[in-house]
């Protein structure tokens, strides 16, 4: 009996860290997506390319021997600037357009960036990672990656800071108000551009952080690397409940946990189908709670 606990205890800790660190990446991306969706009704397909931009910036800087303390802030900043540019060029002319129009526009921007990456960067680039990303701590017979612990911690810290920003600062309060009702917020004297640009910048910043996590784990960056994480983040947003920021975070972690549990529970033959099973679980959740885990019931059905 004791032996079982001795084995499962560290094992559970290891798997929990796996789930939380995977969930962290999803949660950060989902949060950025939910922010844009709640304020301007945009499902931003191009969010994944912000992640990739972060990856390319990281790669380019490391290639040129820039030290890590400089690489980290620049990797965070580049996607934020790209997000602002994206808003100015592609989405501002479409402000107030329907869900479908904005969706198609963001899909087009996503493809545009992928093609640009393909033309100018070509194949996958290996990122030269320092040795500390491979550091582990031993917990009984299992090892836990230090990076994953740091990732989880940083994500929680970011969520805390973001909550403070949204609750305590004028711009944060304006953003939350805009998410409730954009028109009325404007009538209160809040500048629409300020809110929208702040939302894009923040979502880019969160994508930058996710990018640091994602590419230090994958070790290489390619033109299409943004697709899978962003689609997972979409799913996370829907599980949590569209339009709810808390929901996006909950959904992100829920998806991470689902994937890790399935990964551990599925027989070897079914492993390649892991993502498909995770999506089926998600659809099952939506059947029971179409409004998501946190969201309020809306819509026809």
């Amino acid at each position, binding site marked *: 009996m004791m032996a079982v606990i001795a084995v499962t205890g560290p094992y559970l800790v290891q798997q929990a860290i796996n789930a939380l660190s995977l969930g962290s990446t999803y949660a950060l991306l989902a949060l950025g997506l939910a922010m844009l969706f709640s304020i301007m009704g945009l499902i931003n397909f191009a969010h994944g390319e912000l992640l990739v931009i972060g990856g390319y910036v990281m790669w380019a800087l490391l290639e040129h021997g820039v030290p890590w303390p400089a690489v980290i802030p620049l990797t965070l900043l580049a996607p934020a600037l790209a997000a602002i540019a994206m808003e100015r060029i592609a989405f501002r002319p479409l402000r107030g357009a329907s869900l479908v129009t904005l969706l198609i526009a963001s899909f087009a921007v996503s493809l545009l960036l992928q093609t640009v990456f393909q033309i100018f960067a070509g194949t996958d680039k290996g990122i030269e990672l320092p040795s500390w990303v491979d550091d582990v701590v031993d917990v009984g017979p299992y090892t836990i990656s230090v990076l994953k612990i740091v990732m989880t911690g940083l994500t929680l810290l970011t969520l805390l800071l973001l909550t403070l920003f949204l609750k305590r600062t004028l711009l944060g309060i304006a953003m939350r108000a805009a998410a409730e009702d954009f028109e009325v917020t404007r009538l209160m004297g809040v500048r629409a551009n300020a809110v929208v640009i702040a939302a894009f910048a923040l979502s880019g910043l969160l994508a930058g952080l996710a990018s640091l996590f994602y590419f230090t784990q994958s070790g290489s960056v390619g033109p299409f690397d943004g697709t899978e994480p962003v689609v997972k983040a979409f*799913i996370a947003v829907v599980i949590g409940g569209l339009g709810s920021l808390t929901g996006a975070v909950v959904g992100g972690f829920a998806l991470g946990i689902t994937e890790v549990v399935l990964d551990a529970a599925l027989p070897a033959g079914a492993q390649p189908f892991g993502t498909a099973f995770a*999506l089926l679980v998600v659809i099952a959740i939506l059947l029971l709670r*179409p409004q998501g885990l946190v969201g309020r019931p809306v819509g026809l059905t």
Partner: protein
Amino acid sequence: MSRPWRYWAVESAAGSALVAAGLALVFLYGVLWAGGTTRHTVLFSKDTIVYFFIDVVLVVGLQIFSGNSGILSFGHTAFIGTAAYAASLLSIDVALKSYVSPGLPHYLETHSVGLVPATLLAVALVGILALATGLVVLRLDGASAVIAILALLLIANVVFGAWTSVTRGAGGLYGMPESTTIGWAFGTAVLAVVVARVFKDSRTGLQLQGSREDAFSAAAVGVHVRAARLRAWLLSAMVSGAGGALFALKLGAITPSTFYLQETFTIVVMLVIGGMTTVSGAVAGVAVVTFVREVVKPYESRSLDLGVMHVDRLTNLTNLALVALILAVLFFRREGLVGRSELDESLRRLVRRGSRNR
């Protein structure tokens, strides 16, 4: 009788006939001038024309659901892919089959069928899948529905890639007979146009368009929105499936990535450029995109010298053209080139206005 019948009998027929006549002109061009498969002497090769007809089937298929319901589906590529895989597995030569796809049930492994039965069986399979998935995802609404439908595409992609004993995984299937002739492609395209137009003018179609404009009002006057969406979903998936089967049996080899986001984007762009609310818009969009694609493609192999850096190959330049096209349409003509009325409706209005002036 009442107006809806006149709609069905006369206007749908007239509308479909106009679009079908346009397709027939392309068909004649394909048969008479665009002989062979090379493009030395003509702008459009016969292959291009065949793919044009297949794209018409695919885009019109998507129009049936998305155009009428207003819910843009990124999941139809899952149906296209499923039908493509099914039709391929049904028609690969028996001698090759056990090697390509050893996991098939014995009966399937030892029998192969031709283009028509393969397509029909693939369409039937897609119909069953569409019913099963539709009952689930169409319970959702708005953005949640869009994302759940996208999840279907992901699931399909995972299955195509992971079910290696049947699909050969990332390597894909090969060895299918390239049996989709220009005649079959043209015939199916015309059939798809007629089906889409008749559905659009049908009771369910009109109800669905009502729900597209205002779902709550439509529900308030007694429209069962979810049932109407489900019918459209089913029909739409099956038409897309027919296109997918023809597509696979034209390509001769398919991989999971053939049926993923790139294909989805191309189909969506075709639909939106022409105007997703109309069948003629869907067809016009395919024509415009096919034209642009053929013009741009030769430049993809060019290199580019920007001074600061040199680019060997303009990979996927076609995509950039499509992105420019779609953004231009979204910025300046959101309803698409054809707009909200079918070509025949606009034409009739034009004639009526002309005669009034005289």
